[in-house]
């Protein structure tokens, strides 16, 4: 023990500068990320602002029961939970393949300058704020008395085999069934290009020898994609899928908050916006805290589960 301490103090004497560089970052994470985790205790308390989280009285699982089974909140909570899962599921089904396909296309563009240009344009929307993006969507889809947003009037014109996609005059922003498509499409527009970066890098990393070998064997392009490119990307695909599943419960709530309105709560309200409404707009912090905790735990289980499965089936994992 004494020997160890001596060893440590000698280590610190020579390497103290390294720790000086490290400590501000550690303090930052403690103060702003780890300390609030203790505040999750609010889920088990009857929170009173004057007493603070620690001083408030302990009520066990009361808040969770209220949240899930009371007539005041139960229905809202389960709607929000279902919407969170559904929006993520659609996000996965549409949002996962599009960047991969995009990366495959990018890799086929042999004219360097055109490829660079197209990547520059397609990565750009990622860097615009949610307020900007939703601002554009809200203005383009606006349905007013005397005028209609450009996108809304375009959508009214879409007619597939005599079947009207959206009835002219429909207030798209205020119709519950259009919220999720709108949310997903907005997300696709914003993130598809940017999300293709990792896949593009993976495709570039596939050894050219493999392509040559397949060519010698007389394989065509589809076989090349199927037997060389996609298997070569497999580790990346799996990691990204694990990441995606791990984030199933963390919908980009800013976008929902900025796009939704009372008319579309039935399809749009997600756990985080529900938490925001009852805990920050409203005053029911304990109940909102319980929903937060529920969200965090399920999210965490999803990450660990997805990681476990991917390690089992493919030897690829996050940690």
């Amino acid at each position: 023990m004494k020997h160890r301490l001596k060893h440590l103090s000698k280590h610190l004497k020579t390497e103290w500068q390294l720790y000086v560089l490290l400590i501000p970052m550690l303090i930052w994470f403690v103060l702003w990320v780890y300390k609030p985790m203790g505040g999750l205790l609010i889920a088990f308390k009857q929170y009173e602002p004057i007493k603070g989280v620690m001083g408030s009285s302990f009520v066990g699982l009361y808040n969770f029961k209220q949240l899930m089974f009371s007539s005041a909140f139960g229905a809202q909570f389960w709607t929000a939970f279902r919407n969170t899962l559904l929006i993520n599921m659609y996000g996965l089904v549409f949002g996962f393949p599009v960047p991969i396909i995009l990366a495959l296309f990018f890799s086929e563009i042999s004219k360097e300058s055109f490829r660079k240009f197209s990547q520059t344009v397609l990565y750009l929307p990622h860097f615009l704020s949610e307020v900007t993006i939703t601002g554009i969507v809200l203005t383009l889809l606006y349905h007013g008395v005397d005028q209609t947003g450009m996108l809304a009037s375009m959508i009214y014109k879409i007619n597939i085999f005599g079947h009207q996609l959206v009835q002219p005059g429909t207030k798209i922003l205020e119709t519950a069934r259009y919220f999720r498509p709108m949310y997903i499409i907005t997300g696709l527009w914003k993130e598809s290009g940017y999300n293709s970066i990792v896949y593009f890098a993976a495709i570039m990393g596939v050894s050219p020898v493999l392509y040559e070998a397949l060519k010698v064997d007389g394989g065509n392009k589809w076989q090349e994609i199927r037997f060389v490119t996609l298997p070569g990307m497999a580790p990346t695909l799996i990691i990204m899928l694990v990441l995606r599943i791990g984030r199933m419960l963390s919908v980009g709530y800013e976008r929902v908050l900025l796009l939704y309105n009372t008319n579309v709560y039935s399809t749009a309200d997600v756990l985080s916006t529900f938490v925001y409404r009852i805990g920050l707009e409203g005053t029911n912090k304990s109940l909102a805290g319980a929903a937060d905790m529920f969200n965090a735990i399920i999210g965490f289980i999803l990450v660990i589960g997805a990681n476990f499965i991917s390690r089992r089936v493919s030897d690829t994992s996050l940690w």
Partner: protein
Amino acid sequence: MKRMSSSELIFKVLSYFFISLFIILAAYPLIYVLSASLSGRAAYETGQVFLLPKDVNFQVYEILYARNGFWISYTNTLFYTVFGTIFSMTVSAMGAYALSKKRLKFRRQYNFFVVFTMWFSAGMIPSFLNYTSMGVDNKWGIVIAFGIQAYNIILLRNYFESVPQEIEEAARIDGANEFQLFTKIYLPMSTAALATVTLFYATSRWNGYFWASILLKNPHEKPLQVFLRSEIMTYRTLIENMVTDTLEFSPDSYAYAILICSIIPILIIYPYIQKYFARGVNLGGVKG
């Protein structure tokens, strides 16, 4: 030029076609927003604006220019972006450098400590209570309490790890200490990674909305995004009340004009840094 098989040719043609289509889909809304902000009222409201502006006038930008809240929020956002990025970069780069060194004791644990925050967070209510109890309700509070992301730290750490060991040893022999190694050797050698992370931090500061809108007490400290949002929700009545008979533009043009003003700084900086980040961002960034 080697010969292409027919399936290769088809796929190539398809690629060019779809990429061109995607470019149009990505760029068109932005071009339309710009054109609509510059177009005259009659042309816009009768649906004549499609790609290029019609009956160009700058009245809407003059009105925006004269709006007090616009300049206040714009300067505030500049403040948050500049100081916030400097703060986040300093803390992240220093920490990432330390994490990249094998001689750091408990290195694995520190790494886990950072990476864990990518997967588990306290949630909105506990975070909110923490911010308010720590007095995060002013400009400097926003700068210090936000912005650092584990992802960016890992990205920098991986980059620092890839710097050849020999360079460090040579500098050591010349008598460089840790701080000198960090500032004189590692930072200058990592410009690509630093530029990438700076872009990430700067845009997230520039775009910051939610917490600023909730936490800031003084309305004169609100950033551009908060102003932008409130204008978008209220512009129709605002504009109709502002100028009654001399309105040369549609109220919508006003919303489009502030959207454009909020995008311009990103449009200016982004192309310069874009060439770095395609290299900087890869799987290394997401794996702990």
